Protein backbone atom coordinates (compact mmCIF):
# COMPACT_ATOMS: atom_id res chain seq x y z
CA UNK A 1 0.00 0.00 0.00
CA UNK A 2 1.29 3.41 -0.94
CA UNK A 3 0.07 4.89 2.33
CA UNK A 4 2.12 2.39 4.29
CA UNK A 5 5.22 3.17 2.25
CA UNK A 6 4.71 6.88 2.78
CA UNK A 7 4.31 6.39 6.50
CA UNK A 8 7.62 4.61 6.73
CA UNK A 9 9.54 6.99 4.49
CA UNK A 10 8.44 10.31 6.00
CA UNK A 11 10.96 11.73 8.42
CA UNK A 12 9.79 13.61 11.47
CA UNK A 13 10.91 16.88 9.88
CA UNK A 14 8.93 16.08 6.74
CA UNK A 15 5.85 15.42 8.81
CA UNK A 16 6.21 18.58 10.87
CA UNK A 17 6.74 20.68 7.78
CA UNK A 18 3.83 19.03 5.96
CA UNK A 19 1.50 19.49 8.91
CA UNK A 20 2.54 23.12 9.27
CA UNK A 21 1.47 23.63 5.66
CA UNK A 22 -1.84 21.88 6.20
CA UNK A 23 -0.93 18.76 4.22
CA UNK A 24 -3.71 16.36 5.17
CA UNK A 25 -1.68 13.27 4.33
CA UNK A 26 1.17 14.38 6.57
CA UNK A 27 -1.34 15.06 9.33
CA UNK A 28 -2.81 11.60 8.97
CA UNK A 29 0.61 9.94 9.10
CA UNK A 30 1.61 11.99 12.14
CA UNK A 31 -1.61 10.95 13.82
CA UNK A 32 -1.01 7.29 13.05
CA UNK A 33 2.55 7.48 14.30
CA UNK A 34 1.86 9.25 17.57
CA UNK A 35 -1.67 8.27 18.55
CA UNK A 36 -0.46 5.00 20.18
CA UNK A 37 2.03 7.04 22.24
CA UNK A 38 -0.30 9.86 23.24
CA UNK A 39 -3.32 7.74 23.99
CA UNK A 40 -1.78 6.19 27.12
CA UNK A 41 -0.89 9.70 28.31
CA UNK A 42 -4.55 10.67 28.08
CA UNK A 43 -5.58 7.44 29.77
CA UNK A 44 -3.22 8.12 32.67
CA UNK A 45 -4.91 11.45 33.34
CA UNK A 46 -8.51 10.76 32.43
CA UNK A 47 -9.20 7.07 32.32
CA UNK A 48 -10.18 5.23 29.18
CA UNK A 49 -13.63 6.74 28.91
CA UNK A 50 -12.62 10.35 28.37
CA UNK A 51 -9.22 9.70 26.80
CA UNK A 52 -10.65 9.23 23.33
CA UNK A 53 -12.17 12.72 23.25
CA UNK A 54 -8.99 14.33 24.48
CA UNK A 55 -6.92 12.37 21.99
CA UNK A 56 -8.94 13.99 19.21
CA UNK A 57 -8.86 17.44 20.80
CA UNK A 58 -5.13 17.15 21.44
CA UNK A 59 -4.32 16.32 17.84
CA UNK A 60 -6.39 19.25 16.61
CA UNK A 61 -4.35 21.49 18.91
CA UNK A 62 -1.12 19.91 17.70
CA UNK A 63 -2.00 20.63 14.07
CA UNK A 64 -3.08 24.13 14.99
CA UNK A 65 0.13 24.97 16.84
CA UNK A 66 2.67 22.88 15.02
CA UNK A 67 3.98 25.97 13.26
CA UNK A 68 5.21 27.26 16.62
CA UNK A 69 7.40 24.21 17.25
CA UNK A 70 10.96 25.47 16.76
CA UNK A 71 12.76 22.17 16.98
CA UNK A 72 13.94 22.83 20.51
CA UNK A 73 13.63 19.66 22.56
CA UNK A 74 12.04 16.48 21.34
CA UNK A 75 8.95 16.72 19.21
CA UNK A 76 7.34 13.90 21.16
CA UNK A 77 7.93 15.82 24.38
CA UNK A 78 6.38 18.92 22.84
CA UNK A 79 3.35 16.92 21.79
CA UNK A 80 3.04 15.26 25.18
CA UNK A 81 2.84 18.67 26.85
CA UNK A 82 -0.10 19.51 24.63
CA UNK A 83 -1.91 16.33 25.55
CA UNK A 84 -1.17 16.81 29.24
CA UNK A 85 -2.53 20.35 29.04
CA UNK A 86 -5.60 19.19 27.16
CA UNK A 87 -6.19 16.55 29.81
CA UNK A 88 -5.79 19.05 32.65
CA UNK A 89 -8.15 21.43 30.89
CA UNK A 90 -10.71 18.69 30.69
CA UNK A 91 -10.30 17.88 34.36
CA UNK A 92 -10.66 21.54 35.22
CA UNK A 93 -13.79 21.85 33.14
CA UNK A 94 -15.56 19.31 35.27
CA UNK A 95 -13.96 20.94 38.30
CA UNK A 96 -13.28 17.66 40.01
CA UNK A 97 -10.12 18.93 41.64
CA UNK A 98 -12.18 21.01 43.98
CA UNK A 99 -13.83 17.95 45.43
CA UNK A 100 -12.07 17.29 48.66
CA UNK A 101 -13.36 13.78 49.05
CA UNK A 102 -10.44 12.64 46.95
CA UNK A 103 -8.13 13.79 49.65
CA UNK A 104 -10.12 13.23 52.76
CA UNK A 105 -11.76 9.94 52.04
CA UNK A 106 -8.85 8.08 50.54
CA UNK A 107 -7.32 5.95 53.25
CA UNK A 108 -3.58 5.85 53.47
CA UNK A 109 -2.89 2.15 53.14
CA UNK A 110 -0.02 0.84 51.12
CA UNK A 111 2.95 -0.39 52.99
CA UNK A 112 6.22 -1.59 51.62
CA UNK A 113 6.04 -3.27 48.23
CA UNK A 114 7.95 -6.50 48.13
CA UNK A 115 10.95 -6.67 45.86
CA UNK A 116 10.23 -8.04 42.40
CA UNK A 117 6.49 -7.50 42.57
CA UNK A 118 6.49 -4.58 40.15
CA UNK A 119 8.36 -6.58 37.56
CA UNK A 120 5.57 -9.12 37.48
CA UNK A 121 3.01 -6.54 36.44
CA UNK A 122 2.64 -5.41 32.83
CA UNK A 123 2.85 -1.77 31.79
CA UNK A 124 -0.74 -1.84 30.61
CA UNK A 125 -1.90 -3.14 33.99
CA UNK A 126 -0.01 -0.36 35.75
CA UNK A 127 -1.49 2.16 33.34
CA UNK A 128 -4.95 0.96 34.27
CA UNK A 129 -4.12 1.13 37.96
CA UNK A 130 -3.01 4.74 37.62
CA UNK A 131 -6.06 5.55 35.50
CA UNK A 132 -8.22 4.01 38.20
CA UNK A 133 -6.98 6.35 40.93
CA UNK A 134 -9.33 9.09 42.10
CA UNK A 135 -8.93 12.06 39.79
CA UNK A 136 -7.17 14.38 42.24
CA UNK A 137 -4.62 11.77 43.28
CA UNK A 138 -4.15 10.72 39.68
CA UNK A 139 -3.47 14.26 38.54
CA UNK A 140 -0.92 14.94 41.27
CA UNK A 141 0.78 11.59 40.68
CA UNK A 142 1.02 12.17 36.94
CA UNK A 143 2.31 15.71 37.19
CA UNK A 144 4.83 14.98 39.93
CA UNK A 145 6.06 11.50 39.03
CA UNK A 146 5.61 11.38 35.26
CA UNK A 147 6.05 15.03 34.21
CA UNK A 148 8.57 15.96 36.86
CA UNK A 149 6.87 19.06 38.24
CA UNK A 150 7.63 20.23 41.78
CA UNK A 151 4.88 20.32 44.38
CA UNK A 152 4.73 24.10 44.08
CA UNK A 153 4.21 23.82 40.35
CA UNK A 154 1.68 21.04 40.72
CA UNK A 155 -0.19 23.18 43.24
CA UNK A 156 -0.22 26.13 40.83
CA UNK A 157 -1.37 24.00 37.92
CA UNK A 158 -4.16 22.32 39.83
CA UNK A 159 -5.23 25.21 42.00
CA UNK A 160 -4.34 23.47 45.25
CA UNK A 161 -1.79 24.19 47.93
CA UNK A 162 1.68 22.75 47.89
CA UNK A 163 0.90 20.84 51.06
CA UNK A 164 -2.19 19.38 49.51
CA UNK A 165 -0.12 18.26 46.55
CA UNK A 166 2.29 16.44 48.88
CA UNK A 167 -0.53 14.85 50.78
CA UNK A 168 -2.29 13.65 47.63
CA UNK A 169 0.90 12.24 46.18
CA UNK A 170 1.51 10.28 49.34
CA UNK A 171 -1.99 8.85 49.20
CA UNK A 172 -1.64 8.08 45.52
CA UNK A 173 1.54 6.09 46.15
CA UNK A 174 -0.05 4.16 48.97
CA UNK A 175 -3.12 3.38 46.96
CA UNK A 176 -1.06 2.24 43.97
CA UNK A 177 1.13 0.01 46.10
CA UNK A 178 -1.93 -1.56 47.65
CA UNK A 179 -3.50 -2.20 44.26
CA UNK A 180 -0.28 -3.57 42.83
CA UNK A 181 -0.07 -5.99 45.73
CA UNK A 182 -3.63 -7.10 45.18
CA UNK A 183 -2.99 -7.51 41.48
CA UNK A 184 0.20 -9.42 42.08
CA UNK A 185 -1.42 -11.82 44.54
CA UNK A 186 -4.41 -12.18 42.27
CA UNK A 187 -2.19 -13.06 39.34
CA UNK A 188 -0.27 -15.67 41.29
Amino acid at each position, binding site marked *: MSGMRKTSTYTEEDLISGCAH*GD*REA*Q*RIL*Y*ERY*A*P*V*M*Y*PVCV*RYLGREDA*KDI*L*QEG*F*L*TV*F*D*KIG*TYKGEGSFEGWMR*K*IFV*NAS*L*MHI*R*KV*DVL*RRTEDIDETPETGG*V*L*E*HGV*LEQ*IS*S*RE*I*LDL*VAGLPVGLRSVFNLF*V*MEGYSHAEV*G*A*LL*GITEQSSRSQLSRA*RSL*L*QEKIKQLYHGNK
Partner: protein
Amino acid sequence: MVTNDFDQRLRDHLEGVTEPAPDVWEGISEGLERRRRKVLFRRFTVAAAAAAAVLALALLVFRGPRDGGQVEAPVQIAQTDPAPAEATQATDIAPIEEQIAALPQQAMAAVRTSRTVAPKATKVVEPVKAARQVEEEPVETTPVVTKPDVSTPTGEPKTEEPQADEPKHLLTEDDLPADYWTREEASEPSHNRTHTSQISILSNLTTVSSDGNLLYIPSASHASSQSGKGQATTDIEPISASNAPKFYVPLTFGLQVAFPLTDRFSVATGVTYSYLVSQYDILYKKVLYEGAYNQLHYVGVPVSLSYHFVQTPHLGVYASVAGAAEKCVGQRYVFGSNVASEKVKGLQWSAKAGIGVEYWFIPHMGIYFDPSLVYFFDNKQPLSIRTQQPLQASFEVGLRFKI
Protein backbone atom coordinates in the same frame (compact mmCIF):
# COMPACT_ATOMS: atom_id res chain seq x y z
CA MET B 1 10.72 -0.21 48.56
CA VAL B 2 11.98 3.34 48.87
CA THR B 3 9.60 6.02 47.58
CA ASN B 4 11.96 7.43 44.96
CA ASP B 5 12.72 3.98 43.71
CA PHE B 6 9.03 3.19 43.48
CA ASP B 7 8.40 6.36 41.48
CA GLN B 8 11.30 5.61 39.17
CA ARG B 9 10.18 2.07 38.45
CA LEU B 10 6.64 3.17 37.80
CA ARG B 11 7.99 5.83 35.46
CA ASP B 12 10.05 3.21 33.64
CA HIS B 13 6.95 1.11 33.22
CA LEU B 14 4.74 3.90 31.98
CA GLU B 15 7.00 6.13 29.93
CA GLY B 16 7.51 3.89 26.99
CA VAL B 17 4.08 2.36 27.01
CA THR B 18 2.16 2.40 23.78
CA GLU B 19 -1.15 0.89 22.93
CA PRO B 20 -3.46 0.96 19.96
CA ALA B 21 -5.54 4.10 20.10
CA PRO B 22 -9.19 4.25 19.17
CA ASP B 23 -9.62 5.55 15.64
CA VAL B 24 -10.46 9.21 15.96
CA TRP B 25 -8.94 10.31 12.65
CA GLU B 26 -12.34 10.92 11.12
CA GLY B 27 -13.23 13.36 13.88
CA ILE B 28 -9.84 15.04 13.60
CA SER B 29 -10.25 15.34 9.84
CA GLU B 30 -13.66 16.94 10.23
CA GLY B 31 -12.32 19.32 12.85
CA LEU B 32 -9.46 20.33 10.56
CA GLU B 33 -11.87 20.91 7.71
CA ARG B 34 -14.07 23.12 9.93
CA ARG B 35 -11.06 25.15 10.97
CA ARG B 36 -9.90 25.47 7.38
CA ARG B 37 -13.30 26.81 6.35
CA LYS B 38 -13.23 29.27 9.22
CA VAL B 39 -9.83 30.55 8.16
CA LEU B 40 -10.93 30.85 4.53
CA PHE B 41 -14.08 32.69 5.52
CA ARG B 42 -12.12 35.06 7.70
CA ARG B 43 -9.63 35.79 4.94
CA PHE B 44 -12.43 36.30 2.46
CA THR B 45 -14.30 38.72 4.68
CA VAL B 46 -11.18 40.71 5.45
CA ALA B 47 -10.33 40.85 1.74
CA ALA B 48 -13.88 41.85 0.85
CA ALA B 49 -13.91 44.62 3.42
CA ALA B 50 -10.52 45.85 2.25
CA ALA B 51 -11.65 45.80 -1.39
CA ALA B 52 -14.81 47.65 -0.46
CA ALA B 53 -12.83 50.30 1.37
CA VAL B 54 -10.45 50.70 -1.57
CA LEU B 55 -13.38 50.91 -3.98
CA ALA B 56 -15.04 53.55 -1.85
CA LEU B 57 -11.84 55.53 -1.71
CA ALA B 58 -11.37 55.22 -5.45
CA LEU B 59 -14.90 56.41 -6.06
CA LEU B 60 -14.32 59.38 -3.85
CA VAL B 61 -10.98 60.32 -5.35
CA PHE B 62 -11.57 59.60 -9.02
CA ARG B 63 -15.17 60.68 -9.27
CA GLY B 64 -15.67 62.49 -12.56
CA PRO B 65 -17.50 65.78 -13.12
CA ARG B 66 -20.97 65.56 -11.74
CA ASP B 67 -23.90 65.56 -14.06
CA GLY B 68 -26.15 65.97 -11.11
CA GLY B 69 -28.17 62.97 -12.08
CA GLN B 70 -30.22 65.13 -14.37
CA VAL B 71 -32.75 63.69 -16.69
CA GLU B 72 -31.53 63.92 -20.23
CA ALA B 73 -32.87 66.92 -22.04
CA PRO B 74 -36.10 65.91 -23.67
CA VAL B 75 -35.53 67.11 -27.21
CA GLN B 76 -39.15 66.75 -28.02
CA ILE B 77 -40.60 69.54 -26.00
CA ALA B 78 -40.29 72.41 -28.37
CA GLN B 79 -42.69 72.37 -31.23
CA THR B 80 -42.79 74.61 -34.21
CA ASP B 81 -46.52 74.17 -34.38
CA PRO B 82 -48.49 77.08 -33.19
CA ALA B 83 -49.82 76.57 -29.74
CA PRO B 84 -53.48 75.85 -29.34
CA ALA B 85 -55.53 78.79 -28.41
CA GLU B 86 -56.56 77.43 -25.05
CA ALA B 87 -52.95 77.06 -24.08
CA THR B 88 -52.44 80.73 -24.51
CA GLN B 89 -55.53 81.69 -22.61
CA ALA B 90 -53.60 81.67 -19.46
CA THR B 91 -54.63 83.26 -16.29
CA ASP B 92 -52.70 86.16 -14.93
CA ILE B 93 -49.04 85.80 -15.52
CA ALA B 94 -47.08 85.03 -12.44
CA PRO B 95 -44.04 87.03 -11.49
CA ILE B 96 -40.89 85.92 -13.19
CA GLU B 97 -39.36 84.42 -10.07
CA GLU B 98 -42.41 82.22 -9.55
CA GLN B 99 -42.31 81.13 -13.14
CA ILE B 100 -38.72 80.10 -12.77
CA ALA B 101 -39.42 78.26 -9.58
CA ALA B 102 -42.37 76.47 -11.14
CA LEU B 103 -40.50 75.58 -14.23
CA PRO B 104 -40.12 71.84 -14.30
CA GLN B 105 -36.58 70.74 -14.41
CA GLN B 106 -37.02 68.77 -17.59
CA ALA B 107 -38.44 71.77 -19.36
CA MET B 108 -35.61 73.97 -18.26
CA ALA B 109 -33.11 71.38 -19.32
CA ALA B 110 -34.77 71.26 -22.69
CA VAL B 111 -34.73 75.02 -23.00
CA ARG B 112 -31.10 74.95 -22.09
CA THR B 113 -30.36 72.28 -24.64
CA SER B 114 -32.31 74.17 -27.24
CA ARG B 115 -30.29 77.20 -26.50
CA THR B 116 -27.14 75.42 -27.42
CA VAL B 117 -28.65 74.36 -30.71
CA ALA B 118 -30.11 77.71 -31.56
CA PRO B 119 -28.22 80.23 -29.53
CA LYS B 120 -30.25 83.23 -30.48
CA ALA B 121 -33.75 82.06 -30.08
CA THR B 122 -36.48 84.36 -31.03
CA LYS B 123 -39.22 82.58 -29.23
CA VAL B 124 -39.52 80.95 -25.85
CA VAL B 125 -41.82 78.20 -24.88
CA GLU B 126 -44.27 79.23 -22.26
CA PRO B 127 -43.18 77.32 -19.19
CA VAL B 128 -46.51 75.78 -18.28
CA LYS B 129 -47.08 74.59 -21.76
CA ALA B 130 -43.59 73.28 -22.06
CA ALA B 131 -44.05 71.21 -19.00
CA ARG B 132 -47.31 69.80 -20.30
CA GLN B 133 -45.70 68.92 -23.56
CA VAL B 134 -42.94 67.06 -21.81
CA GLU B 135 -45.45 64.91 -20.06
CA GLU B 136 -47.78 64.30 -22.94
CA GLU B 137 -46.07 64.40 -26.27
CA PRO B 138 -43.45 62.17 -27.69
CA VAL B 139 -41.81 64.34 -30.25
CA GLU B 140 -39.37 63.62 -32.97
CA THR B 141 -38.63 67.08 -34.24
CA THR B 142 -35.44 69.00 -33.82
CA PRO B 143 -35.56 71.19 -30.81
CA VAL B 144 -36.26 74.74 -31.66
CA VAL B 145 -37.19 77.38 -29.19
CA THR B 146 -40.36 78.99 -30.30
CA LYS B 147 -42.03 82.13 -29.31
CA PRO B 148 -45.43 81.60 -27.86
CA ASP B 149 -48.34 83.12 -29.58
CA VAL B 150 -49.69 85.56 -27.09
CA SER B 151 -52.78 86.39 -28.99
CA THR B 152 -55.87 84.43 -29.77
CA PRO B 153 -55.87 82.34 -32.91
CA THR B 154 -57.35 85.19 -34.75
CA GLY B 155 -54.71 87.49 -33.46
CA GLU B 156 -57.23 89.68 -31.70
CA PRO B 157 -56.67 90.54 -28.09
CA LYS B 158 -59.28 89.27 -25.73
CA THR B 159 -61.64 91.94 -24.67
CA GLU B 160 -62.19 90.57 -21.18
CA GLU B 161 -58.53 90.97 -20.37
CA PRO B 162 -58.09 94.06 -18.23
CA GLN B 163 -55.10 95.17 -20.22
CA ALA B 164 -55.75 93.28 -23.41
CA ASP B 165 -54.03 95.82 -25.54
CA GLU B 166 -50.72 95.27 -23.69
CA PRO B 167 -48.59 92.27 -24.48
CA LYS B 168 -48.58 89.61 -21.81
CA HIS B 169 -45.43 89.27 -19.82
CA LEU B 170 -44.21 85.82 -20.77
CA LEU B 171 -40.98 84.18 -19.81
CA THR B 172 -38.17 85.02 -22.17
CA GLU B 173 -34.46 84.56 -21.95
CA ASP B 174 -34.08 88.13 -20.90
CA ASP B 175 -36.22 87.48 -17.87
CA LEU B 176 -34.00 84.73 -16.57
CA PRO B 177 -31.38 85.62 -13.99
CA ALA B 178 -28.04 86.44 -15.50
CA ASP B 179 -26.38 83.39 -13.99
CA TYR B 180 -29.19 81.01 -14.82
CA TRP B 181 -27.34 79.12 -17.54
CA THR B 182 -24.13 78.94 -15.60
CA ARG B 183 -25.67 78.14 -12.29
CA GLU B 184 -24.38 74.97 -10.65
CA GLU B 185 -26.79 72.11 -11.07
CA ALA B 186 -26.04 71.02 -7.53
CA SER B 187 -27.97 73.95 -6.24
CA GLU B 188 -31.09 72.71 -7.92
CA PRO B 189 -33.33 70.50 -5.89
CA SER B 190 -32.82 66.81 -6.51
CA HIS B 191 -35.94 64.78 -7.08
CA ASN B 192 -34.07 61.62 -6.17
CA ARG B 193 -32.83 62.71 -2.86
CA THR B 194 -33.40 60.21 -0.07
CA HIS B 195 -30.94 61.78 2.26
CA THR B 196 -32.82 62.89 5.33
CA SER B 197 -32.47 62.57 9.07
CA GLN B 198 -32.46 58.97 10.06
CA ILE B 199 -32.48 56.77 13.10
CA SER B 200 -30.76 53.39 12.97
CA ILE B 201 -30.90 50.23 15.02
CA LEU B 202 -27.74 48.28 14.41
CA SER B 203 -25.93 45.11 15.27
CA ASN B 204 -22.37 44.36 14.47
CA LEU B 205 -20.20 41.30 14.01
CA THR B 206 -16.45 41.45 13.91
CA THR B 207 -14.13 38.83 12.53
CA VAL B 208 -11.65 37.21 14.87
CA SER B 209 -8.68 34.99 14.36
CA SER B 210 -9.10 31.29 14.95
CA ASP B 211 -8.60 29.77 18.34
CA GLY B 212 -5.02 29.48 19.36
CA ASN B 213 -3.59 31.34 16.43
CA LEU B 214 -2.78 34.34 18.50
CA LEU B 215 0.14 34.19 20.82
CA TYR B 216 -0.49 36.29 23.86
CA ILE B 217 2.46 38.10 25.29
CA PRO B 218 1.60 39.50 28.70
CA SER B 219 2.24 43.18 28.88
CA ALA B 220 2.29 45.61 31.71
CA SER B 221 -0.46 47.62 30.07
CA HIS B 222 -3.06 44.96 30.62
CA ALA B 223 -2.16 44.42 34.21
CA SER B 224 -2.00 48.10 34.98
CA SER B 225 -5.34 48.80 33.38
CA GLN B 226 -6.97 46.25 35.58
CA SER B 227 -5.29 47.35 38.71
CA GLY B 228 -6.31 50.90 38.12
CA LYS B 229 -2.89 52.37 37.44
CA GLY B 230 -1.22 52.21 40.76
CA GLN B 231 -4.17 51.45 42.94
CA ALA B 232 -4.44 48.29 44.97
CA THR B 233 -3.20 45.43 42.84
CA THR B 234 -5.73 43.10 41.39
CA ASP B 235 -6.09 39.48 42.38
CA ILE B 236 -6.32 38.45 38.75
CA GLU B 237 -3.58 38.63 36.21
CA PRO B 238 -3.55 37.16 32.72
CA ILE B 239 -0.49 35.05 32.18
CA SER B 240 1.11 33.38 29.23
CA ALA B 241 0.82 29.74 30.13
CA SER B 242 0.77 26.83 27.76
CA ASN B 243 -2.58 27.70 26.20
CA ALA B 244 -3.04 30.45 23.66
CA PRO B 245 -5.97 32.73 24.42
CA LYS B 246 -9.23 32.21 22.62
CA PHE B 247 -11.40 35.09 21.50
CA TYR B 248 -15.06 34.81 20.69
CA VAL B 249 -16.85 36.92 18.11
CA PRO B 250 -17.60 40.33 19.63
CA LEU B 251 -21.19 41.55 19.43
CA THR B 252 -22.32 45.14 19.18
CA PHE B 253 -25.79 46.62 19.30
CA GLY B 254 -26.71 50.24 19.08
CA LEU B 255 -28.92 53.13 18.22
CA GLN B 256 -27.80 55.98 16.01
CA VAL B 257 -29.23 59.18 14.62
CA ALA B 258 -28.00 60.68 11.35
CA PHE B 259 -28.40 64.25 10.14
CA PRO B 260 -27.68 65.60 6.67
CA LEU B 261 -25.01 68.26 6.49
CA THR B 262 -25.28 68.87 2.74
CA ASP B 263 -27.06 66.95 0.05
CA ARG B 264 -24.13 64.51 -0.02
CA PHE B 265 -22.67 64.53 3.46
CA SER B 266 -24.27 63.40 6.67
CA VAL B 267 -23.12 63.02 10.22
CA ALA B 268 -24.31 60.36 12.66
CA THR B 269 -23.93 59.66 16.33
CA GLY B 270 -25.56 57.50 18.93
CA VAL B 271 -24.82 54.91 21.54
CA THR B 272 -23.53 51.35 21.21
CA TYR B 273 -23.13 48.38 23.50
CA SER B 274 -20.43 45.77 22.85
CA TYR B 275 -19.92 42.39 24.47
CA LEU B 276 -16.56 40.66 24.27
CA VAL B 277 -15.68 37.24 25.58
CA SER B 278 -12.18 35.80 25.79
CA GLN B 279 -10.70 32.70 27.35
CA TYR B 280 -7.18 32.59 28.66
CA ASP B 281 -5.02 31.49 31.56
CA ILE B 282 -4.95 33.65 34.66
CA LEU B 283 -3.28 33.81 38.01
CA TYR B 284 -5.82 34.31 40.76
CA LYS B 285 -4.35 34.78 44.21
CA LYS B 286 -1.11 33.30 42.85
CA VAL B 287 -2.89 30.20 41.60
CA LEU B 288 -2.97 29.31 37.92
CA TYR B 289 -6.36 28.85 36.33
CA GLU B 290 -6.32 27.69 32.76
CA GLY B 291 -9.04 28.75 30.38
CA ALA B 292 -10.71 31.38 32.52
CA TYR B 293 -13.51 33.25 30.78
CA ASN B 294 -13.29 37.02 30.64
CA GLN B 295 -16.41 39.02 29.79
CA LEU B 296 -16.22 42.70 28.91
CA HIS B 297 -19.14 45.08 28.51
CA TYR B 298 -18.51 48.33 26.65
CA VAL B 299 -20.81 51.29 26.12
CA GLY B 300 -19.68 53.68 23.43
CA VAL B 301 -20.46 56.83 21.53
CA PRO B 302 -19.57 56.73 17.84
CA VAL B 303 -19.47 59.71 15.52
CA SER B 304 -19.37 59.17 11.79
CA LEU B 305 -19.23 61.22 8.64
CA SER B 306 -20.70 59.73 5.48
CA TYR B 307 -20.52 60.72 1.86
CA HIS B 308 -23.48 59.51 -0.19
CA PHE B 309 -22.43 58.93 -3.76
CA VAL B 310 -25.51 57.02 -4.87
CA GLN B 311 -28.94 58.22 -3.82
CA THR B 312 -32.09 56.86 -5.33
CA PRO B 313 -35.47 56.50 -3.70
CA HIS B 314 -34.70 52.84 -2.92
CA LEU B 315 -30.95 52.49 -2.89
CA GLY B 316 -28.14 54.39 -1.30
CA VAL B 317 -24.41 53.77 -1.37
CA TYR B 318 -22.05 55.71 0.80
CA ALA B 319 -18.59 55.79 2.28
CA SER B 320 -18.04 56.53 5.94
CA VAL B 321 -15.30 57.39 8.34
CA ALA B 322 -15.98 57.18 12.04
CA GLY B 323 -14.45 57.40 15.45
CA ALA B 324 -15.74 56.01 18.70
CA ALA B 325 -15.00 56.25 22.39
CA GLU B 326 -16.07 53.30 24.49
CA LYS B 327 -16.09 52.83 28.23
CA CYS B 328 -15.82 49.40 29.79
CA VAL B 329 -18.71 49.35 32.22
CA GLY B 330 -18.19 45.80 33.41
CA GLN B 331 -15.55 43.12 33.50
CA ARG B 332 -16.09 39.65 34.86
CA TYR B 333 -13.93 36.55 35.14
CA VAL B 334 -15.44 33.10 35.37
CA PHE B 335 -13.10 30.26 36.25
CA GLY B 336 -14.17 26.97 37.71
CA SER B 337 -16.86 27.80 40.20
CA ASN B 338 -15.45 31.27 40.84
CA VAL B 339 -16.71 34.58 39.55
CA ALA B 340 -14.76 37.81 40.01
CA SER B 341 -15.45 41.33 38.80
CA GLU B 342 -12.99 44.11 38.21
CA LYS B 343 -13.20 47.76 37.24
CA VAL B 344 -11.54 49.06 34.11
CA LYS B 345 -10.30 52.59 33.78
CA GLY B 346 -9.87 54.68 30.67
CA LEU B 347 -11.56 54.70 27.30
CA GLN B 348 -11.18 52.54 24.25
CA TRP B 349 -10.75 54.71 21.18
CA SER B 350 -11.22 53.39 17.70
CA ALA B 351 -11.35 54.59 14.11
CA LYS B 352 -13.34 53.07 11.32
CA ALA B 353 -13.63 53.41 7.55
CA GLY B 354 -15.81 51.57 5.13
CA ILE B 355 -18.65 51.67 2.72
CA GLY B 356 -22.33 51.02 3.17
CA VAL B 357 -25.37 50.09 1.20
CA GLU B 358 -28.89 50.94 2.27
CA TYR B 359 -32.11 49.71 0.75
CA TRP B 360 -35.38 51.48 1.45
CA PHE B 361 -38.04 48.89 0.94
CA ILE B 362 -40.74 51.30 2.06
CA PRO B 363 -40.40 55.10 1.98
CA HIS B 364 -39.55 55.51 5.64
CA MET B 365 -37.87 52.27 6.53
CA GLY B 366 -34.88 50.47 5.12
CA ILE B 367 -32.10 48.08 5.88
CA TYR B 368 -28.41 48.70 5.58
CA PHE B 369 -25.14 46.83 5.54
CA ASP B 370 -21.84 48.50 6.38
CA PRO B 371 -18.69 46.45 5.89
CA SER B 372 -15.73 48.33 7.26
CA LEU B 373 -12.27 48.17 8.75
CA VAL B 374 -11.90 49.16 12.39
CA TYR B 375 -8.71 49.98 14.23
CA PHE B 376 -8.68 49.87 18.02
CA PHE B 377 -6.01 52.05 19.55
CA ASP B 378 -3.87 50.85 22.44
CA ASN B 379 -5.58 52.47 25.40
CA LYS B 380 -4.46 50.06 28.11
CA GLN B 381 -7.66 48.09 28.09
CA PRO B 382 -8.01 44.50 29.33
CA LEU B 383 -6.86 41.66 27.12
CA SER B 384 -9.39 41.03 24.40
CA ILE B 385 -9.57 40.55 20.66
CA ARG B 386 -9.25 44.32 20.40
CA THR B 387 -5.86 44.38 22.10
CA GLN B 388 -4.57 41.31 20.30
CA GLN B 389 -5.90 42.08 16.83
CA PRO B 390 -6.35 45.86 16.66
CA LEU B 391 -7.26 45.92 12.98
CA GLN B 392 -10.50 44.10 12.36
CA ALA B 393 -13.09 43.71 9.67
CA SER B 394 -16.50 44.70 10.90
CA PHE B 395 -19.91 43.94 9.46
CA GLU B 396 -22.71 46.15 10.64
CA VAL B 397 -26.30 45.54 9.67
CA GLY B 398 -29.39 47.32 10.83
CA LEU B 399 -32.68 49.02 10.21
CA ARG B 400 -33.06 52.69 9.33
CA PHE B 401 -36.05 54.94 9.77
CA LYS B 402 -36.47 58.37 8.23
CA ILE B 403 -37.51 60.94 10.77
